[in-house]
């Protein structure tokens, strides 16, 4: 079988997902062996940007026009496009709901609207807002094991699916007492599994860094947290952090409905 050609790219984000690929110290050589790596600028300066790819892994959110151009370019030359990490899948913390419009925030940080002329900034969005995404690997950052599994299946020509269940399942497999019962603000039920419930296993409530699970029942979680004594503001803030672009819209509507 011919080695699949892959590229690993980063748009706007913290580079944590690419870094965690580099962090697969024991498997790194194997990865370089199984795939023909055409571009991985974080690890090697030998890049071939002309080549067409079997799989492109893209990290980061689309936050500038340059990001968008790069992304379209990558999409064009790749058979399978994998959104990797929270930023790429959901938009990242930078796309969270903060109750104000993004332009206003931008002006506050940079002084004026056109302070930076290099490329036009865009409100951060996940890849799927612009291009077709074939597979996702959420996580802020992605974890080694799920990445290796995903890469393994892709190497075999199979497009993997992310499981449909929340962190709580893994939390129970790890035999933890539920933090919600202790009155902690755990985001486990609303959050994609895959991390292995690292935080609740350490006694820390999940902050939701693997992003919202599909068809999350966040009304119920909000109800529960209010019963436990948290304010609407507390809840909205917490839901927002890793809620990404889509939950931001839901939160806006939720607050609007409250005001009426």
């Amino acid at each position, binding site marked *: 079988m011919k080695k699949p050609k892959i590229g690993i790219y980063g748009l706007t984000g913290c580079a944590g997902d690419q870094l965690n690929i580099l962090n697969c110290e024991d498997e790194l050589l194997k990865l370089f062996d199984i795939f023909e790596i055409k571009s991985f600028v974080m690890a090697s300066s030998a890049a071939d940007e002309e080549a067409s790819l079997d799989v492109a892994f893209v990290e980061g959110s689309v936050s500038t026009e340059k990001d968008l151009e790069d992304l379209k370019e990558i999409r064009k030359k790749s058979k399978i496009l994998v959104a990797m990490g929270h930023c790429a899948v959901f938009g990242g913390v930078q796309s969270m709901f903060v109750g104000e419009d993004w332009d206003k925030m931008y002006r506050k940080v940079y002084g004026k609207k056109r302070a930076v002329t290099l490329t036009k900034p865009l409100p951060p969005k996940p890849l799927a807002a612009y291009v077709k995404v074939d597979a996702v690997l959420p996580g802020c950052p992605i974890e080694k094991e799920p990445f290796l599994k995903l890469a393994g299946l892709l190497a075999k*020509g*199979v497009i993997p*699916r992310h499981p449909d269940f929340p962190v709580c399942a893994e939390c129970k497999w790890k035999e933890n007492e539920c933090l919600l019962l202790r009155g902690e603000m755990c985001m486990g039920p609303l959050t994609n599994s895959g991390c292995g419930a690292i935080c609740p296993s350490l006694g820390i409530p999940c902050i939701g860094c693997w992003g919202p699970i599909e068809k999350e029942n966040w009304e119920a979680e909000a109800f529960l947290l209010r019963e436990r004594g948290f304010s609407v503001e507390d809840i909205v803030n917490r839901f927002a952090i890793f809620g990404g672009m889509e939950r931001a819209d839901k939160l806006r509507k939720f607050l609007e409905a409250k005001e009426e």
Partner: protein
Amino acid sequence: MHEILYHQDNPYMPERARIVRKYDLTGDVRFFQVRLCNPDKVFPVTSSYSPGQFMMISLPYVGEAPFSITSTPSRPGLFEFCIRKVGRLTSRLFQLEENDFLWLRGPFGNGFPVEKMIGKDLLFVAGGLGAAPLRSLLLYALDNRDLFGKLFYLHGARTPRDMLFREEFFQLKQRKDFRCYLTVDEDPEGDWPFDKGVVTSLFKYVKVNPRNTAAVVCGPPVMYKYVVQEFIKLGIPDANIYMTLERKMKCGMGKCGQCVVGHKYVCVDGPVFTLWDVKNVKGLI
């Protein structure tokens, strides 16, 4: 202390089979004929099965899924399937060529109660992919024609191009010992020689002794309601009306739980159910 003895047989372990023949039945449904590489194996696969049973087809890296056996046990040695390309596993199956391997477990499921049908008139109604399990029973009945009474086979498809086993049924229509009626909802090319309209419109041809008839329906869920009404209109008792159901299945052996409806495991208590079962188990259809 005592030694632990392991059974050698693991019903989760698939057996290798070879694709002997494959061709497209319609745009997205493909016919596969496969032969076990080790035909003497009796566990976890056996070459003997009854019509209406299904096999788990296994492809490493993608998983397993249930598929009805469409061949008849009266012509042993081979398994036949018709498979619609809908998702991950089926897409992968479509990439396979003749002589490639796939893996099988089974047969599973209750199958049609053939012995209960003996001596009765048979009325089959198939829609779309429902023809797959029905073909098995039909071929079985035709091979053992003298065991049964009258035999009606009604088959509907959306267009002539969507009709499974079209050529085969054209052939069978020639046979005098059973009545085969085919219909299509639409005929865009305008060359369909037979009936047009929904499958229930074919009931006008049916003449059976309702008290002594086994009726079988197989097709998309929406079809059941209308066809069953026709059966009831004919006066066929609930217990003689059979249908095959589909649910998500991972093991095929009543363990993984994903096909459970009420207290029924579709994989072992079904996939063939009577109308009586369906009425008594909420949620079956």
